[in-house]
Structures are given as structure tokens and as C-alpha cells.
């Protein structure tokens, strides 16, 4: 699933000839994939033991609502993200208009905003008693809700808007990377054939970018599915709401796991469909990546539209929430000196950095092993399944993490007691390791996508040349591949870092005593609609996310030599 963006060329190395079997690589890759899969497998296992069969009740009552709502959410968020992400990416890469340089990186800024924050902030702004409607009522003299119509923010439409605003950057990021790599000669050829910029976009650039867009869309979809905070706050009844309801209100964790499994099956189906649709496509990147992009000049009217089109997502997805949050945060600057506050920040930072490193390392191992063993289907399958953690709602993922870790700890403890007469207690559960592990399971999909697509662009002749010069695979990886995919590695590191900073539900459940991250600290208050009290911490989450985001943008831009 995560190698969708890989240019799936038939291997130039003959796979019919048995490769020399390198047990080291194979077993390391398999064990990594298996370890990362454990929580997902734990959820599948839980699904086998519901306290009672919930499906008749669900089917009779609320399942149709859950499914319909979820599908609408996916369609809405997915569709809008693609339109905004791809559209703005193309404009910013291929056209000249005022503000283009700023929008290049500014369009990524909403990525630094946690979805739950944006949901709270916009609700505060737009609800009946909020400043916007109050102002309108004053202006027009309306007295009660019955006298005018204003879109209900706490609705499916509201949820779709919120999720789109924070998720479109995935599509933007990947599309832009793809557009940047596109050969100028193909573009020139299309112009020779008389294509206008729009036609060139639609008939040439877009199909070439399709694998990247597909990865972006799959990430957006999985994030939409696993979201609970936003949909819960907006009282939208999606499948994730059903999972938590079955678990917490009906006390049926097994049934909750069944719904989660259903969701993951759905994800697998969607992604498989896309791959099948694309299976016959072959792409090879041209070698003229040294020509700088010859941008289209737009007429003033079109320039204005372009600026508007790029400005809107930035303003709505970042600027407005940032300013509102800032105004709250300024009232509580006294918190900066609290010792606890710095501790929370350092926890966030450490966990996110460790998670980023670990996740990218695992992604590299898996991607490289796939390259070494292109014919080994089981390894490919394991790699794909290990990315499923992204589709699980956070708290369910946490339970999935607790089960194997606690089982491991308790077995070691029991063993030590038997053999040596003393227990070791809990070793991994309830430590920061559990959190980092959970982040790795969750974000592997993201880093895999980036690493694999970067790796796939390295031609196999590099591997062959390296081998013929006497380097073994490990040395080849270190000295040849890693330097070549620097951009993809950095992208993966940065994206996972920012995502981990924002992560909330799994962190809440898995952490040690007296241990808060910025996100969990914010949640304490935000969950009781006291966001203002924790606004400073929330601000810090966003600020810390901005730097990687800008770095990210520069990394992507620099992938095109000559820019």
C-alpha cells in the first residue's frame, strides 16, 4: 500500500534467477515488520472475543448512519484535499503570480495545526454565541436564532471543512514533490502540441503525479478514519464514534475491535483498488532535471485568482486559528515560567524526535529489503500490513500496544521469578518507550511512503554498479542509497516529527505517571472547553511545528537540481 508512489518498473535484475539469500536482511526486515504489526494484530485478536454480538443491534439502528457519515466524510475530505492540494501545488510550481514564493511554504503551515485545536477554535469563533454571529446579530438587529440562517459549524460539513484544512497539506506536499520532478521536456512537448496551461496540467502533469496524489489521498483518508476528537466534538457519528461507543458505553471492547477491523479492511480495499487501476502504468523520470522550471505567466485576472486560491487555505487553515490562539495565549504568558511547562515541552520534543528517527529507520529497512527481494511477496505483504496502524483510532491503537508490551513484560517477569526468584515487574509498559513504539506503529505509513518513493527513483543500475565494485548490500545502502535519498529521508523525519508532536489519544493512555506532553496538557483543559487556559501550550505545539514545515518545503524545493 505504501509503495504506490514507487515507479513500479519491472526489475531490471532478473528475478527468475535465485538471488543469493541474505538471511540477515530478510530476518531483520521480517522482524521489524512483525513488531510494528503487533498492535494491529492485537486488535484483530481482540475482535475475536466480543462480550456479545453487537452487529444485529448496530445493523438495526445506527450502523447505516455510521457508514453513510463515514463515506461522506471520506469523500468530502478526500475530494476537497485533492482539489486544494493538487491545485495549489501545481499553481505554485508551474505558474508565476504574486506571492508564489511565500505560498510555496505557507501552504504547508496548516500541517502544524492539530485537528482538534482547529475544531475548538473555529467552534468558538463561529458558534451561535461566538464573536462572528454575535457581531452579525448586532449589525442586523436579529434577536434569536430563528430570525436568520447561519451554517451550523457543529455538523458534518463543519467536520469536513476542519479536517480538510489540516489534511490537504499531505496532498500538497506529495503533489508538489512530484511536479517538481517532472521533466520539462514533457511539458514543452505538450506546448508544442498546442496545450494551454490548463490542458497541460490536466493531460500531462496530473497523470504523472497520480501515484503521489494517490499516496497523499490514502494518508488523508486514514487520518480521516482514525480521527475521533474532531468528529466527537462536532457530534458527527462516524465509525470511529461507533468504535468508542461500543467500547466505553456498551463495555464491549471486542465489538469495538470488530468495527476497527472493518475499517481497516475497507482501507485495504480502497488502496488495492487504486493499485489495480494503476497497475499497468509505467513511469520513468527523465534525466533533464537540471533545467529550471519555465513557469507560465498568468494574465492579471488569473494571477489574482491564483493568489486567492492559494491564500484561502493558508488564511483559513493557519492564519486565523493562529491569531485566535495567539490572543488567548497572550493572556497567560505567566505559564512560561512554570517548571512543569518546560518539562511538558521537553517531553514532547524528545518523544517526537525519537519517534521520527525510529520510524524512518524502520521504513528504510523495509523499503530496502523490498528492493533486495522484489519477488518475495510475503515480505511485500508484511510491509504493507505494517502500515495499517495509521487507520486505527488513537485509543484503540494504544490498547493494541498495551497488549503485546504487557504480555512481554509479564512473561519476562514470570520467567525471572521462576528461574531466579525475583520479579522484574513492568519493563516496557508505562514507559516512554511504549509511546515511541506507538508513534512508530502509527506513523510508519507516512514515512514509508516518502522513503519508498525516493528509493524507487534510484535506478537499479546503481545497485548493480555498487555490487560489481565489491560492496555488500549494507555498504551499498550506507554509501550509495542513503545519500541519494537524503531528501526523502528528511521529508519523512520532518513529517513524522510534526505528526508526533500533535498526537494525543495514544499518548494519554500509554504514558508514565506525572508525564505530560504539550498535547496531553492542552487536552486536559481543551476537553473541558477551557482551551484558553492551555492556549500557550497549544501555541507552542504549533510554533514547534512551523520550523520543520518550512524546512520541509525547502527540502522539497531542493530536490530539483538547478532550482
Amino acid at each position, binding site marked *: 500500500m505504501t509503495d504506490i508512489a514507487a515507479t513500479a518498473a519491472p526489475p531490471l535484475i532478473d528475478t527468475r534467477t535465485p538471488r543469493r539469500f541474505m538471511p540477515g536482511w530478510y530476518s531483520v526486515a521480517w522482524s521489524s515488520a512483525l513488531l510494528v504489526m503487533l498492535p494491529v494484530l492485537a486488535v484483530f485478536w481482540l475482535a475475536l472475543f466480543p462480550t456479545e454480538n453487537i452487529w444485529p*443491534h*448496530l445493523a*438495526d*439502528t*445506527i450502523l447505516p*448512519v455510521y457508514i453513510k457519515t463515514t463515506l461522506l466524510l471520506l469523500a468530502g475530505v478526500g475530494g476537497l484535499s485533492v482539489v486544494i492540494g493538487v491545485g495549489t501545488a501545481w499553481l505554485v510550481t508551474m505558474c508565476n503570480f504574486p506571492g508564489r514564493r511565500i505560498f510555496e511554504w505557507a501552504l504547508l503551515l496548516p500541517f502544524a495545526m492539530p485537528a482538534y485545536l482547529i475544531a475548538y477554535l473555529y467552534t468558538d469563533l463561529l458558534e*451561535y*454565541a461566538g464573536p462572528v454571529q454575535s457581531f452579525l446579530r448586532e449589525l442586523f438587529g436579529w*434577536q*434569536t*436564532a430563528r430570525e436568520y440562517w447561519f451554517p*451550523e459549524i*457543529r*455538523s458534518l460539513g463543519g467536520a469536513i471543512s476542519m479536517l480538510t484544512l489540516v489534511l490537504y497539506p499531505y496532498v500538497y506536499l506529495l503533489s508538489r514533490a512530484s511536479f517538481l520532478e517532472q521533466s520539462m521536456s514533457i511539458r514543452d512537448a505538450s506546448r508544442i502540441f498546442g496545450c494551454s496551461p490548463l490542458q497541460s496540467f490536466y493531460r500531462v502533469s496530473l497523470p504523472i503525479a497520480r501515484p503521489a496524489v494517490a499516496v497523499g489521498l490514502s494518508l488523508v483518508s486514514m487520518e480521516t478514519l482514525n480521527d475521533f476528537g474532531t468528529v466527537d466534538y*462536532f*457530534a458527527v*457519528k462516524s465509525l470511529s464514534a461507533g468504535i*468508542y*461507543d461500543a*467500547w*466505553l*458505553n*456498551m*463495555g*464491549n*471492547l471486542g465489538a469495538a475491535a470488530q468495527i476497527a477491523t472493518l475499517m481497516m479492511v475497507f482501507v485495504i480495499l480502497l488502496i488495492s483498488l487504486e493499485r489495480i487501476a494503476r497497475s499497468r502504468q509505467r513511469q520513468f523520470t527523465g534525466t533533464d532535471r537540471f533545467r529550471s522550471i519555465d513557469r507560465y505567466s498568468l494574465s492579471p485576472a488569473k494571477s489574482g485568482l491564483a493568489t486567492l486560491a492559494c491564500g484561502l487555505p493558508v488564511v483559513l487553515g493557519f492564519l486565523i486559528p493562529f491569531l485566535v490562539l495567539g490572543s488567548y495565549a497572550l493572556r497567560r504568558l505567566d505559564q512560561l515560567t512554570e517548571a512543569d511547562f518546560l518539562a511538558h515541552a521537553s517531553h514532547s520534543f524528545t518523544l517526537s524526535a525519537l519517534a521520527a528517527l525510529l520510524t524512518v529507520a524502520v521504513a528504510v529497512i523495509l523499503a530496502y529489503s523490498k528492493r533486495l527481494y522484489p519477488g518475495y511477496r510475503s515480505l511485500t505483504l508484511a510491509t504493507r500490513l505494517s502500515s495499517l496502524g495509521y487507520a486505527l483510532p488513537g*485509543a484503540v491503537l*494504544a*490498547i493494541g500496544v*498495551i*497488549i503485546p508490551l*504487557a*504480555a512481554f*513484560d*509479564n512473561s519476562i*517477569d514470570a520467567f525471572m521469578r521462576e528461574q531466579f526468584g525475583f*520479579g522484574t*515487574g*513492568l519493563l516496557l*509498559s*508505562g514507559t516512554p518507550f511504549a509511546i515511541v513504539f506507538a508513534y512508530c506503529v502509527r506513523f510508519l505509513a507516512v514515512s514509508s511512503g516518502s522513503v519508498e518513493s525516493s528509493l524507487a527513483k534510484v535506478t537499479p543500475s546503481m545497485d548493480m554498479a555498487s555490487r560489481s565494485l565489491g560492496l555488500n548490500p549494507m555498504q551499498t545502502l550506507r554509501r550509495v542509497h542513503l545519500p541519494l535519498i537524503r531528501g526523502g529521508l528528511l521529508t519523512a523525519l520532518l513529517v513524522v516529527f510534526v505528526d508526533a508532536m500533535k498526537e494525543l489519544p495514544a499518548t*494519554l*493512555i*500509554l*504514558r*508514565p*505517571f*506525572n*508525564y505530560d506532553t504539550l498535547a*496531553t496538557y492542552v487536552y*486536559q*483543559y481543551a*476537553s*473541558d*472547553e477551557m482551551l*484558553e*487556559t492551555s492556549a500557550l501550550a497549544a501555541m507552542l505545539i504549533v510554533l514547534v511545528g512551523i520550523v520543520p514545515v518550512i524546512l520541509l518545503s525547502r527540502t522539497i524545493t531542493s530536490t530539483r537540481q538547478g532550482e
Partner: protein
Amino acid sequence: MTAKKALLAGLALSTFGSLAHAADEVNIYSYRQEFLIKPLLEAFTAETGIKANVIFSKKGLLERLEHEGANSPADVILTSDVGPLHDAVERDLVAPIHSDLVDANVPAHYRSKEDKWVGLTARSRIIYASKDRVEPGEIKTYEDLADPKWKGRICTRSGKHSYNLSLIGSIIEHDGAEQAEQWLTAVKDNLARRPQGNDRAQVKAVKEGQCDLALGNTYYYGKMLTNDKEPEQVEWAKSVNLVFPNQDDRGAHMSISGAALAKHAPHPDAAIKLIEFLTSEKAQKMYAEVNYEFPVRAGIEWSALLKEHMGEFKADEVNLGDVVKHRADASRLVDKVGFDN
């Protein structure tokens, strides 16, 4: 060299030193937000010298406790509702609390029948009625909410929230399942908007004229009235009257926040001390002052605010264990009626 060795030795010793000073502690898995219980825990540490360690999460702590098993570091489970306590008992995760002090401090209907959990504070789920648009005495019972005259005038949070599930559970317990279904369907028809937001948001909606009646817990009233960081909340509170339903029959629906003792608690004595402290006069007074909840302990003076605005009322004295056992049915009922749609 010697200086360096001395420094290292000093550092090493100081680590051991701190280990030795790891005096008694008590580990808490809390479903209640930290900022709510922190003042009480600090008072506990000041009085007993026992350090309190906390993890807060609104979900998943019982699962964590269950899987950690005998090696779990948890001593005490603090909850904001009786639901998780009931679950903990059902899943055999708690040990009985044998303490004469606790038995004496807490009335029987706020304790589990087998001493497996104990209520620490109580609150009632009452009706906040608009001062301008609802006459005093116009609504008297929860069952009245189903009256068609309230059509389009009621606001509430999600039917699936544990506070509402608890209320629906009590309706099932007192009126039977069929009646409860009819009641819930009628209330749904009377809603002014789709259930959303928290309890305070409902009072906000009453103030702004979106609805005339709101369901909410009593402690939010105190919190709104004294909110100097957000003065608009004071206005919300001032715009409503408090109605304690069913004063002529069973009394207003109560819920508790509570505590339980983990089965494999590594510090059982400290845990019991904590629970005893939380039911002591000092802590119960703090609960009353800080959180505007009702102390479970008899004879504790309510805070001035509670006394001024609430006064004596009749509380439903059904054992909460009998109410919470209907929770799954209540949840199913919400689905069946489509209450949240």
C-alpha cells in the same frame, strides 16, 4: 583524577540517596482531570508525606490496568462517574476497601454494596431553566421534559455522554424500559438542536435564546458563576434558574465521582490512606469549595455559593450500582431512538 572520581561518587551516592528517599507513594490512574484533583492531592501529601503520582486519561486506563495484571503499578483508580467503577468491579480489577473510617464517612447508597468502590463527591443532574421564558414551577420532573409544550425548547449534550446515560439509566430503573423509550423519543422531539457541546454550552444556548431548558450537572453552575477568566460565563449562569426535578417523589438524579482500590496495588496502605483522606472532613470541604460538588460525607457545610443558590433538596437515594447496570441498555436506547442524529 581524584576530583573527578569524587564527583562521580558523589553523583552516584546522590542517586542512591534519592532512591532511599522514595518514601511512601501512591499511584493513581485517574479519569478525572489533573487540575481538578491536584489541590486535594497536594493537601494529602502535605498531611501524610506520601507522594501522589497521577496519570489522567478519559479512556483506556482500565484496559491498561487489566493487561498490566499483577505487575501494575496502579494503587487507586479515581473516576468522574460511577461507570468505570462498575466496569472495574465487573472485570475483577479491584479489591474491597476495608476501612471503618470510610464506612463511617460515606453513606451506604454512595458506596458499592460489596465495598468495592466508594463515592467521593456527588452532583445532581438538574434542569437549568431560562429566567425570562420559563415560569418557576412550570417544570417539575424529568418526565415532564417529554411534554409537547417544550417542543423546540430543550438543549442537551450528546445522549451518549456518561452523564446522560446515567440519567437515562435511572429512568429505566424507576420507570421501566418501555416508558424510558417513550420518554426519550418524546424528549428528542423537543430538542432545539442536535445534541452537541458540553453542559456549560447548553446554558450558554439558553442565555442566547436558542432554547429554554438545559440539562446539566450542578457543579457547572458554581464554575460559571465564579469564572473571572471568562466573565461571559457569569452571565450565562445568571440567566437561569435551577430546577431540582422530582422533589415530590423520588428526588433528583445523583451521580458520583469515586475511587476504587486496585487489586494488585503495590502500596495498599498508602492507597487506603488516600481514600480515607478523600472522605475526610478536610478533603470533603475542599471538594465543596473548589469543585462546587456536594460532599458525600454528612454534616459538611456546603460552600456559601452552594447554600445560597441551591439549598436543601431531595436527592434520589437509589443505589448507583442499580442505575449504572442499565448503562448498556441506555446506550442502545439512544441508538434506537436516534437521539443524537
